[in-house]
């Protein structure tokens, strides 16, 4: 397989679902995928111990991604499964990557927090809070220089709102009128620290506006609201008006799989989990007269599809040990010498 050397969408992502039923379907797929990631972990089949689920945040991923086009690029954070899936990722290859297997997007070297796919414009998930943000400034710069019409979007959480790199990046994007957008998925917690324990300035969009970006905040409960705000901002970004969107939601579970959230009360969690964008969309669809059997079928299809991802990941081979020294440097470069080879060579004395 010849990997693409530049990030340009060569594959076609699914067409945007503009109707609520389509958005619901995408959100259900994300929700179900994340539930299966949790199962993979419980079954001990996940290579990574660092699994961060986006349950409760589906409207941010699906709503914003539905406003993106082929050729757009993006970076994500450590809680980015849903975004990648919403941009058209193959859930089998995602699950295999999370399990650290050969058939994963990065052949088991990246995992949950370093998954990427240049074909879909995914410039990479990131395990450093805010680490993936400035790359979209660079991608936006190139898009503008070459007149490709592409937008580059950085997705991150509220934790990254307190990282300096975000402000350097927003400043440059505004200064140079770049086709760039910053999306904060505000799930109220940076690990165990609630937003109001991290900052006095909780109206994040005001910070972006202060830098000269178009800034908005939206309630993540309603995916249609997210989609509408995102579409307007993405369209603006495409014409050189960089944008910022904060999507308010609630992280249903702990920071990572082992975190039981002792820093939150049961009452808070119960109330938070009522802000469920998937259930909200389902209720709205039923209100609008959608046949419940159709919704059940969508849910069942998602379950079937995502069940298979676990089988796929479990069946996929471990990457061969010999792949360990591959891709440290470019394809024609000499590979680093393995420790054992070096020791044998050094000790092979006359």
């Amino acid at each position, binding site marked *: 397989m010849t990997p693409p050397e*530049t990030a340009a969408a060569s594959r076609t992502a699914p067409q945007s679902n503009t109707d609520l039923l389509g958005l619901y379907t995408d959100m259900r797929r994300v929700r179900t995928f994340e539930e299966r990631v949790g199962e993979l972990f419980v079954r001990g089949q996940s290579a990574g111990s660092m699994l961060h689920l986006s349950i409760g945040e589906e409207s941010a991923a699906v709503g914003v991604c539905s406003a993106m086009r082929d050729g757009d690029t993006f970076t994500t954070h450590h809680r980015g499964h849903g975004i990648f899936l919403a941009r058209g990722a193959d859930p089998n290859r995602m699950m295999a990557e999370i399990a650290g297997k050969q058939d994963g997007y990065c052949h088991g070297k*990246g995992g949950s927090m370093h998954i990427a796919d240049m074909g879909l414009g995914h410039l990479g998930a990131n395990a450093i809070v805010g*680490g993936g943000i400035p790359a*979209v400034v660079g991608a936006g*710069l190139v898009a503008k220089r070459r007149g490709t019409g592409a937008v580059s979007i950085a997705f991150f959480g509220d934790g990254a709102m307190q990282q300096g790199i975000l402000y350097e990046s927003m*400043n440059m994007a505004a200064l140079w009128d770049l086709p760039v957008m910053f999306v904060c998925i505000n799930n109220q917690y940076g690990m165990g620290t609630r937003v109001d324990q991290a900052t006095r300035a909780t109206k994040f969009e005001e910070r972006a506006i202060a830098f000269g970006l178009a800034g908005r905040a939206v309630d993540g409960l309603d995916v249609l609201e997210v989609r509408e705000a995102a579409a307007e901002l993405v369209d603006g970004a495409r014409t050189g008006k960089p944008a910022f969107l904060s999507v308010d939601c609630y992280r249903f579970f702990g920071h990572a799989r082992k975190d039981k959230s002792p820093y939150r009360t049961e009452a808070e969690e119960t109330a938070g989990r009522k802000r469920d964008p998937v259930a909200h969309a389902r209720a709205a669809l039923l209100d609008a007269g959608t046949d419940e059997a159709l919704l059940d079928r969508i849910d069942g299809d998602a379950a079937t599809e995502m069940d298979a991802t676990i089988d796929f990941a479990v069946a996929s081979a471990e990457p061969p040990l010999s792949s360990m020294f591959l891709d440290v440097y470019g394809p024609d470069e000499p590979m680093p010498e393995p420790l054992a080879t070096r020791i044998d060579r050094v000790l092979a004395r006359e």
Partner: protein
Amino acid sequence: MVEMTYRDALRQALIDAMTENDDIFVIGEEVGRYGGAYGVTKGLIDQFGPERLLDTPISEPAIVGTAVGAAMAGMRPVAELMYVDFIGMTMDQLCNQAAKIRYMFGGQIGVPMVLRTQGGTGRSAGAQHSQSLEAYVMHTPGLRLAMPGTVADAYHLLRMALTQPDPVVFIEHKALYAMKEDVDLTAHVPDWGKAAVRRRGTDVVIVTYSRQVHYAMQAAEALAGQGIEATVIDLRTLNPLDFDTIRAEVEHVGRAMVVSEGPLTAGVAAELAARISEECFDFLHDPVIRIAGEDIPISVSVALEAGSVPSAEIVEQTARKLVA
């Protein structure tokens, strides 16, 4: 042959590379209108325009991060970090992002960018503008590292860096910018990743790079007058590291010294000395000596600054003691 400064050679390399390849652009603080803090990019904005000499706010992490994204999107940025001392600001983008992207993403994409910067002592610039931090870079898999010591290499290594598939940290020496040499830029130089043997002797091998090449050569000339003949190896790039050349010369001579301006402990000299000791053990008559910067910060005082790092005299004296 034309007389040219190290600074002019760097500028010429950028001009030639940017003329040949429209995807190359320079991004950094004061690179355009100002012409670079040390004048390397002077006048380039008139030739290539502000889009290709992109002046930035003082935001080192985002300069490097933007270069990473632009490289992934298919261009070839030359990010400039005014002083290598600022590299700490950029460590996440350089070491966690640029260096690891190809590997973490299973070889899907590389980050073909150059980070041009300068380091070293010689201008009484104080503790935060005089360091030799190449060990930070050499310690990170995925980053290439070039450190030219000659005018010809300033030109050729920069041209070569701009053809590499991986991120290259290119560290110039601030005390060399005004150095002049007669050069023929069309003359052959060793390939990327190959060391240059600047002088051959039979008594001791001096392995070094960047400004210390000149100190080693001065020391070697002085030693020759005392009947001691030294080999001087200019590594040119520290990653790739041409250990084959080091091994061949050390096995031939049987004595080695490593000279580096960076701090002694866990530094480049330490790594080189360890490898020579390990791999050339049966050929060595004496311990491999490290000559490096003292394990102290650099002072503004001219005397303290000069005393903090190796000099030609120290190299000469040490070689004499080693050979005795």
